[in-house]
């Protein structure tokens, strides 16, 4: 296998360059010492897993899990493999290569893209997303200049985004979020997809999701979107009670909900999801039970259950205080959460993330990039991207966003060189995101990156919660450790540290108090 010599990288010189392998000192346990960075966008840092087969035609798979496929490195060094742009050789050699290494997931090349389509007919009373309300009067949506202009701007942003070489791995997921993406004419969606394909490449089997609102599409539109490649639909139902839909300020009624579901099903969308909101004003346990039951009856592959967040500046924010009438009490709202967890689990859904449920194999791949702390592109008003270890949120006001795109085009904003990523921040991200999932935090790779002592302190501070059952510690076989087992490993009575492989939050009690558990971890990481 050919690997270019990398004399330009300062740390390559500093730490020695052995032919094709760069030795990079393993981060010490002092997490504040870790400052991983990419010096230049011209290098692709690859992580490989030996057993995985090539999936795309371009590059090896960029995946961090399952962890057991990883080859572990001698404890004192983590080896980063750095490839130059030699796609063929990579392709030829990757699968056969036994020299594998652990690369932090945020250094992968993005294979996901979020695209924000902000248009809505009106703003829902709970909503604080960056949206553009078109007003119900505009029936001629197809050539509404606001949409047309925005879509052009979006293309420009995509095109102006660096790095733009054909050697990047192609996109594996695209997510059209909103706003109400289903308001956008399919022809315009098509051009965006085309732009993405030209710019980054798009896997043939990429997951392409779109958020769709009842009452904004018919079978024709659905079919057109499917023809473009949209293969996952997220339907914003929110509730199955007319009065609740009204109270939320939704632009549709129950009838449209059923029509939309029927359309999605009849068009043969095989992977669709339904959004529900719990703890809405005046929502009773009976209503919630009904919504869950009716949801299950429709047999979506995926359900997202969001606990209402009363956001500042929204109508709800002005009218209501969490926990106070007409919102359900804290206890009641916790009960709603538990009810959803129990009912959906009983109906065969996996509760794979705090607010996500799915039938086996129907996890939202796109959202999983977030929770795995992997990079993703984002385009459009107010959208947040994560590329090269840097999180960036675009302007939420249209005028400013326009300016941003212009600056991007003339190069005055762009790829930051020498981004320093704070180790603590990174560790906090990893904990925060992974603890949202049923898979939990992989302690061994966490220790690899941030040191054993951090893992130890984390476990120590979680000890009371292992006892109370909010936190579960698993061994390599994903068997839960009993509290005393956990303690004895923690206090080194049991020397077999490998017994502690994952930490997760229990469902529903741990999930329900996830903020407590995560902020506790933050305190450990950055006191």
């Amino acid at each position, binding site marked *: 296998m050919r690997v270019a010599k990398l004399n330009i990288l300062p740390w390559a010189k500093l730490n020695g360059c052995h032919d094709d392998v760069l030795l990079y000192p393993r981060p010490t346990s002092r997490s504040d010492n870790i400052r991983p960075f990419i010096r230049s966008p011209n290098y692709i840092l690859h992580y490989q897993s030996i057993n995985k087969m090539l999936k795309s035609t371009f590059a090896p798979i960029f995946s961090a899990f399952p962890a057991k496929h990883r080859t572990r490195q001698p404890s004192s060094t983590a080896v980063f493999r750095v490839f130059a742009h030699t796609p063929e050789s990579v392709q030829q050699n990757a699968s056969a290569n036994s020299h594998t290494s652990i690369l932090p997931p945020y250094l992968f090349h993005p294979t996901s893209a979020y695209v*924000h389509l902000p248009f809505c007919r009106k703003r829902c009373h709970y909503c604080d997303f960056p949206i553009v309300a078109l007003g119900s009067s505009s029936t001629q949506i197809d050539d509404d200049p606001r949409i047309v202009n925005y879509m052009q701007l979006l293309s420009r942003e995509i095109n102006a985004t660096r790095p733009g070489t054909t050697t990047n791995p192609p996109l594996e997921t695209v997510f059209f979020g909103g706003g109400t993406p289903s308001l956008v004419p399919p022809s315009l969606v098509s051009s965006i997809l085309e732009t993405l394909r030209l710019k980054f490449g798009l896997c043939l089997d990429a997951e392409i999701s779109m958020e769709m609102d009842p009452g904004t599409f018919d079978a024709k539109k659905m079919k057109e979107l499917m023809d473009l490649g949209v293969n996952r639909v997220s339907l914003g139902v929110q509730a199955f009670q007319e009065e609740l839909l009204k109270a939320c300020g939704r632009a549709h009624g129950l009838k449209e909900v059923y029509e939309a579901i029927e359309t999605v099903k009849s068009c043969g969308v095989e992977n669709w999801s339904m959004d529900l909101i719990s703890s809405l004003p005046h929502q009773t346990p009976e209503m919630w039970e009904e919504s869950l039951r009716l949801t299950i009856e429709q047999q979506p592959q995926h359900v997202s259950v969001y*606990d209402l967040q009363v956001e500042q500046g929204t109508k709800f924010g002005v009218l209501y205080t969490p926990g106070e009438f007409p919102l359900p009490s804290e*206890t009641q709202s916790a009960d709603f959460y538990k009810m959803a967890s129990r009912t959906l689990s009983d109906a065969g859904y996996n509760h794979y993330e*705090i607010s996500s449920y799915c039938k086996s194999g129907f996890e939202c791949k796109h959202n999983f990039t977030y929770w795995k702390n992997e990079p993703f592109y984002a385009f459009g008003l107010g959208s947040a991207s994560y590329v090269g270890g840097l999180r960036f949120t675009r302007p939420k006001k249209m005028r400013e966003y326009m300016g941003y795109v212009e600056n991007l085009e003339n190069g005055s904003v762009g790829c930051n060189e020498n981004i320093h990523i704070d180790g603590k921040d990174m560790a906090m991200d990893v904990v925060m995101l992974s603890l949202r999932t049923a898979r939990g935090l992989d302690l061994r790779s966490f220790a690899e990156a941030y040191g054993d002592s951090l893992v130890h302190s984390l476990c120590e501070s979680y000890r*009371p919660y292992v006892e109370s059952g909010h936190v579960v510690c698993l061994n390599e076989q994903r068997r839960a450790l009993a509290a005393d087992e956990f303690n004895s490993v923690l206090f080194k009575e049991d020397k077999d540290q490998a017994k502690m492989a994952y930490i997760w939050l229990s469902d529903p009690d741990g999930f329900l*108090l996830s*903020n407590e558990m995560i902020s*506790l971890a933050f305190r450990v990481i950055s006191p």
Partner: protein
Amino acid sequence: MGYLSRAQKALKSSNFLYFSQTSSKFSWLSALLGSNPLYGSPNCRHFGLSQPFCSHSRQNSKENVIDLNQYPPELIRNFSIIAHVDHGKSTLADRLLELTGTIKKGHGQPQYLDKLQVERERGITVKAQTATMFHKHNFHGADKNDTHEQPSFLLNLIDTPGHVDFSYEVSRSLAACQGALLVVDAAQGVQAQTVANFYLAFESNLTIIPVINKIDQPTADPDRVKAQLKLMFDLDPKDALLTSAKTGQGLEQVLPSVIERIPPPPGNSSSPLRMLLLDSYYDEYKGVICHVAVVDGVLRKGDKISSAATGQTYEILDVGIMHPELTSTGILLTGQVGYVVSGMRSTKEARVGDTLHHNRSVVEPLPGFKPAKHMVFSGLYPADGSDFEALNHAIERLTCNDASVSVAKESSTALGLGFRCGFLGLLHMDVFHQRLEQEHGAHVISTIPTVPYIYEYSDGSKVQVQNPAALPSNPKKRVTACWEPTVLATIIIPSEYVGPVITLCSERRGQQLEYSFIDSQRVFMKYRLPLREIVVDFYNELKSMTSGYASFDYEDSEYQQSDMVKLDILLNGQPVDAMATIVHNLKAQRVGRELVEKLKKFIDRQMFEITIQAAIGSKIIARETISAMRKNVLAKCYGGDVTRKKKLLEKQKEGKKRMKRVGSVDIPQEAFHELLKVS
């Protein structure tokens, strides 16, 4: 401490003509014991150097250098401004400084001498401040227009605090003075601290000039005030000056009266140097700065001096006056008040009340002061666990400038390492906290203030308890008796409030000692009250029930036997040592309930249920529970906007940081602060 006992005798023998009740005044805070030490020092040994030694600009070759040699004692007047809180001392000081051109009119802030941030924010003086002024004056009607003929006088003004907690500052200040302006608000009339401060000055044999201030107010009634002064202090109505520090009315009489009525300092210029150390503070740049009053002799830059208390020797690196900022003069002469910088490393070396004298000369030490007495004690702990060292440093630095706080290390199971501090009163404690935070960036949690009790056990042993936690909840030895400190309180109120005030005092276990009218509308009462009962909110309640018209002052008195019990607070069954208090048996139930309710209100729901209990020994007297938190989850993590979510969680984390973790319970700092308010 020979000079103390000597002074004690002097106090007993000094004769007070006017009021018999005064002889017992201020057993702890009368700093000046006996007759004014500045008057006639009996054994003055001649030291050889005659007075007008010319200091040919040893240090300052600048122009405008003030030549203190021009000011023999006859041309010096040292006086304090004393009054009840807010009667206008600091404002009057401003006017006098302006009048003499010491500060420019309209420049600088009002209450110029209130320099501390706490003083500015609260509008009160907590530290006495000295300023030297120069004023030309002709005795007895010489031609006023002929300025050349007018001699210039050197005047030292000391502005003092009015609040009872800081009367120690007043006592110290009076030691450097021969007279005092007793300021009385023309509308409010004589108030409790007027009485207290009058006696401090009176017992120090100072000349008292009554100044009836704020006569510009529509409700001003100077004649009534004159009558009160006559009745209570036997001050001649003709002697009273009428002023408004606000409009300037009547101010022109003030300095002439000072010069004509107050005697010059009595010291002996040709005697060996003796100076009284009045105060000290630490300055970033200059180091320790001492305020001194030269009683006898002369001090020059470069002199070697010794401390009578420690025997330590120092060289005078800088000497000068406060004019009003530090102004080098190279010399200080008999009767003058100024500052010295002498290379002391810490203000601990500068014992307030100490006598400084020339190295190798032998002098009779000045009487000095009785040490300040600490009325309340409380634990101070770093609010964020790890910061003990930072707090230690901050306290060390602050005590350099506020020596009236006593500090001892202590540790608490709940709060870790901290300090037990003794304060002159609750306002003093509050001000100390505020200064720690503002001037030294420390964040503190303080425990419930307590007064020092004495417990006696069956084996005859006695212990003083400054920290309730130190008292075992279930002692092995039987407690046979307990004593608590009491105070003699002075209360002055409009007569219509007598009923409720008497009720309040008896609720607080008070015993009335005196009841009289100071005029047709005002009642003067004396009470013996347990110190613990007035420490926290007595004054506030008194003020609110009298619409602010009551005034209140106290002096410490003896211990009395009482039935005091230890009240424990338990969280999830574990006693929290830092929350223990000592209360009167009959009040334990109510206080226990209140504490438990306060805690319930201020502790947030947590992941587990929390029980809060109050107990005496093993008997639970109050109980509350806080149910477990049910839900704290951000269900909506959408569009990968991780940053926003993370901010939220970091905010939660920061919130947690401000909590004190006791066992498995997070207690917000406010909860500790709230506990302080329960009495």
